[in-house]
C-alpha cells in the first residue's frame, strides 16, 4: 500500500465519520463542528486527486464562508431548546431510502470502467485561469451575477419592515 492509498483511506474515513456525526448528533454545535471537519477532509480528498486550486478554494469558501455563516446562524438563533435537536419519529424509512441510494450508487460506481486513462498529475492553476477566462467566461460572469442576486435576496429576506 503506497502512501497515497493510506492518505486516501484516512481522508475517506474521516469524511464519512464526520458526515455521520454531522447528521446524527443531538447537539447542534457538535453537528456543525463535525461538518467543519467533513469539509476539511473533502479538501484533503481534492488534494489527493490533484486538484490543488479547488482544494484551497474549498477551504476558502466552504470552511471560511459557509461554515462561518452556519455558525452565525447558530449564534443568532440560539435559544434554550434549539441547542438540542430531536429527530423525526420514523428514522427507519429514511435509513432504508439512504441505504437504497447508497447501494445503487456504489453498484454503478463499481461497474464503471473509464474509457481513457486516469491522469494523476496535478492540474496547473494557469490551466484553470485560461479556462475561466476563455471557454467558461459566460459561467464566470454569471456566477458573479448569481452571487450579487443571492446577497440582495438574503438582505431582502431578513430586512425588518420600516416602522417596527
Amino acid at each position, binding site marked *: 500500500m503506497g502512501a497515497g492509498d493510506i492518505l486516501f483511506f484516512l481522508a475517506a474515513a474521516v469524511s464519512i465519520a464526520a458526515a455521520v456525526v454531522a447528521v446524527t448528533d443531538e447537539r447542534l*454545535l457538535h453537528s456543525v463542528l463535525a461538518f467543519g471537519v467533513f469539509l476539511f477532509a473533502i479538501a484533503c480528498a481534492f488534494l489527493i486527486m490533484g486538484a*490543488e486550486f479547488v482544494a484551497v478554494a474549498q*477551504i476558502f469558501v466552504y470552511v471560511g464562508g459557509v461554515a*462561518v455563516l452556519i455558525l*452565525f446562524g447558530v449564534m443568532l438563533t440560539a435559544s434554550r431548546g434549539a441547542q438540542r435537536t430531536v429527530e423525526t419519529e420514523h428514522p427507519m424509512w429514511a435509513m432504508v431510502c439512504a441505504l437504497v441510494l447508497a447501494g445503487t450508487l456504489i453498484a454503478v460506481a463499481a461497474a464503471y470502467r473509464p474509457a481513457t486513462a486516469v491522469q494523476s498529475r496535478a492540474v496547473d492553476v494557469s490551466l484553470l485561469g485560461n479556462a475561466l477566462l476563455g471557454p467558461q467566461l459566460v459561467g464566470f460572469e454569471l456566477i458573479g451575477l448569481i452571487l450579487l442576486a443571492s446577497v440582495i435576496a438574503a438582505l431582502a429576506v431578513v430586512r425588518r419592515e420600516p416602522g417596527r
Partner: protein
Amino acid sequence: MMVTLATSVVWAVGLFVVAALSVMLGVYLERKVAGHMQARLGPMRTGPHGIAQTLADTVKLLFKEDLIPGKVDRLGFIVAPLLAFAPALMSLMVIPYARPFVPRDLNAGVLYFLAVPAIGVIAVMVAGLSSANNYSLLGGLRSAAQLISYEIPRSLSVLSVVMLAGSLSTVTILERQTHVWFAVLTPIGFALYIITTIAELNRTPFDLPEAEAELVGGYHTEYSGLRWAFFMMAEYAGFFAASAFGAAVFLGGGNGPLLPPIVWFVIKTYAIILFMMWVKWTVPRFRIDQVMTLSRKVLIPVALLNLAVTAVVMQYV
C-alpha cells in the same frame, strides 16, 4: 513514498519548533518594545534583560489550574484553542524561508496562505459560543465579523502582487523580485497588507474583541492557564507567519547583497514585526463600527483601485 513521509514529518516538527521559538521571541519583544516606548524598561529580572521572561510565563501557565466552567459545551471549549493554533502552524508551510527553502511549494501557495486563517475564524466563534457567557458570545461575534471583513482587502492586496508576478506560487513570487521589490511597485498594496494584517491578528488599533474595559476578555474570557496560552500562541505564531509572508511576497525576503539569504529574511520579517508593534503601542483603539466602516467602505474600494492601477502600470511600464 516513505522518504516523502519522513521528510514531511521532519518539516512538520521543524515548523513547530520555528513557531514556538517565534512565539517566545515575539512575546518578549512585545513587552520590551512596549516598555521602551512607554519610557520604562520592561522585564529585567528573569535572566539578563529579562530574556527568560516568556519561559517563566510558560512555566507559570503550565502550573495553573485547568478550569472548565460547569455550563460550557465541553467539546467546543476544548477544541477551540486547538483550532485557533492550527492555522498559524499550517500557514507556515508555504512561506519561502531563505530562497527557495520552502517546506512545500504549492501551486496555489498564496491562496492557501490566505485561506487558512478562515479556520481561525471558526475557532473564535466556537470559543465564543461554547463558553456559557454573554460577553464571550458578543466578543466572539464581533471578532468573527472583524476577521471575515478584513479577509477581503487582505486577499485583494496580495492579489496585486500575484498580478505582478504572474503566479500564485510563493517561490515564483520570490524569484521575480530580484531587481525590485514588489512593495516598491505596489506601495498601496503593501500598506493595505500591513493594515489588514494588523486587523486580522486582532491587534490594536483593532483589538476591540479583546479589550478589557469593553468586553472583559472577549471570546477568551472563560479560558485560563494553558488553554488561554494557546490563544496567545496562536496570535503570536500567526503574527510571525503573516510578517514572514509579507517579507517574502512584498519585500523580497532573502534577496540582498552581502549577507546570507536567511539573515536577510529574518531582518525583513522582524522589521515588519517591529513596525506592527510600534503601531500597536501608539495608536488608540477603534470602535467596532469604525472598524467595519474602515474595512467595507474604505479598504475594499482602495484595494480594487490598487488592482486597477497595478494593471495599468503593468501594461504601460
